[in-house]
């Protein structure tokens, strides 16, 4: 899945190389071939395999695999998890980015570090943390049991880990842009008499809308595709706590290869759509960053 956010915006201005600073031709060609070969081997080939395997027994078998109640419930759960996690992370991301870039407060550096935590922690460990906190033997387990609240091996747990795994995406997209844009426009709006909410709605938010959308796309892709963390807390109950990626695994383990790959094509198509959207939006974000940089230098 498209999971990398390590975007580098610093190279917004295109670098022009002159012959005197350019590397020799063989170096450029070797590097290009190595890179392309790598891409072909590790990205394009698996992509082809997914579709080839799914269509191995023909279109009929491929389409028939979708006629499965468990698959439908997996799709539904995936949509629910993403549908809750993404909006909440948009709110969280906006709050965090706003706080970090517009104010200086104690604990600011800590917050910046914490936002990256889900990237640093292995998803399996992340899932385990939730089991240890909310599971039957966990800290809150007895308390939850008494009140008959099920979190682990149930939908709330899946939503919680999905949120944990995806919460850096929106904030990380917004912070560099908002940092670049500074606070002068907000100050100008204040001198013009605008209140905090008006400033947010009419100045801050429109200024970051493309970066926000970009963050949402990445966040959503990861939320729908997350495997490790969800796998730990889900309990793999068919038709109940199975998300799409988990369903693929189950089918595969049951030797239903066509059905497994057919399900995988849904995720693959989602990834492709995400990639296309991502490149469109990325373009807008970059031009916005460039403008912000120009303006701050003007």
């Amino acid at each position, binding site marked *: 899945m498209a999971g990398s956010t390590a975007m580098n915006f610093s190279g917004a201005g295109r670098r022009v190389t002159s012959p005197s600073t350019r590397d020799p031709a063989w170096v450029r060609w070797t590097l290009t071939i190595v890179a392309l070969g790598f891409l072909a081997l590790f990205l394009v080939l698996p992509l082809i395999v997914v579709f080839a395997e799914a269509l191995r027994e023909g279109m009929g078998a491929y389409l028939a695999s979708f006629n499965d109640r468990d698959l439908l419930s997996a799709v539904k759960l995936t949509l629910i998890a993403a549908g809750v996690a993404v909006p909440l992370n948009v709110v969280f991301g906006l709050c965090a980015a706003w706080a970090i870039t517009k104010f200086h407060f104690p604990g600011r550096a800590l917050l910046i570090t914490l936002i990256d935590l889900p990237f640093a922690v292995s998803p399996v460990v992340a899932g385990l943390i939730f089991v240890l906190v909310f599971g039957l033997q966990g800290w809150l387990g007895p308390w939850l049991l008494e009140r008959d609240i099920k979190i682990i091996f149930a939908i709330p747990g899946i939503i919680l880990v999905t949120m944990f795994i995806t919460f850096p995406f929106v904030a990380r997209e917004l912070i560099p842009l908002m940092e670049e844009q500074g606070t*002068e*426009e907000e*100050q*100008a*709006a*204040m*001198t*013009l*008499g*605008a*209140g905090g909410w*008006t400033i947010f709605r*009419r*100045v801050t938010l*429109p*200024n970051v809308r493309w970066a926000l959308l970009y963050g949402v796309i990445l966040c959503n892709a990861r939320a729908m595709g997350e495997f490790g963390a969800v796998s730990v807390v889900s309990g793999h109950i068919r038709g109940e706590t199975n998300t799409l990626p988990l369903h693929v695994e189950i089918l595969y383990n049951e030797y239903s290869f066509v059905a497994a790959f057919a399900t995988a094509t849904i995720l693959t198509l989602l990834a492709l759509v995400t990639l296309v959207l991502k490149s469109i939006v990325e373009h807008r974000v970059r031009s916005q960053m460039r*403008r*912000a940089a*120009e*303006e*701050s230098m*003007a």
Partner: protein
Amino acid sequence: MSIQVRNVSKSFGDFKALDNVSFDIPTGELVALLGPSGSGKTTLLRLIAGLEDLDPGESSIRYYEEDMTGQSVRKRRVGFVFQHYALFRHMTVFENVAFGMRSLPRAKRPTSEHIRARVHELLALVQLEGLAGRYPTQLSGGQRQRVALARALAVQPRVLLLDEPFGALDAKVRAELRQWVRRLHDELHITSVFVTHDQEEALEIADRVVVMSKGKIEQIGAPADVYHSPETEFVMNFLGQVNTFQGRAVGREIEFADIRVAAADGEERRGEVRVFVRPHELELNASPNGRPCFETTVLRIHAAGAVARLDLQLRNGRLITADLSQDRFAELAPALGSTLMAAPRRVHVFG
């Protein structure tokens, strides 16, 4: 008095940006806060606007006798123009100018026809009528600054505050825009304060100049006063070019560069002093003409410009500059390496 500043201090950590500053701005004047970077001028402007909080203490800021200390910037009704314009980048020129009126609470908000009419009136005032639909990035620096000014004026501010308003523009646009701002001020008569580090700009358009250094006010006065009668060495040095000499005071007279002349202020002094002579206050002659003068050698001549500027070397090796009118320059026709007699017309003394 439309703005009264009393005992205002501001620190950023250990750095004291403003140290107990007090002054008044009379209604309807255009006042310049002039100083080098780090002098506290921008901090002072931002404190007047309410964009920074005052250090706790006996300080106060009043607009038209009304206490503004602690009042939110939203309530102060200031027009603030930022150095880098701070236009709303995703809004058109029209929307930028309309922003203040559209942000008013519903009860006070004018109708959209009224807003439209007022925006166009303001755009006419700043001579940008055709550009209402443009975005800030599609405008030149000078145009952006005028949009920022129209936007600030749209809320009918009680005072207009401008932070280095011409700082980000190139030299020619700067000169035009500041003249234009002066004329606009004469039309509107709104009490205005602008920050600048450019003494020429301050002296050219301000009614009154507040010269600042290291968080304190050095001198306040009309441009001619601060230029011709600087009260401190800093003001002397900061406002225009000046030649500096070491001298010795004997009563009302000063000895320096082998001559003895009267000090401009006529005060009695004793001992070591620093002597200042502006380049245009040196009279140059081919031979002594009876006034106290010292001998110099012509090192360089810059004849391009309104005045001719000569770099001269004293007998002890020190370098000074002198400005001559082009007429006098033609009359004197000095050659490189020739000797000229320099007679100070006016001598400022500090120390």
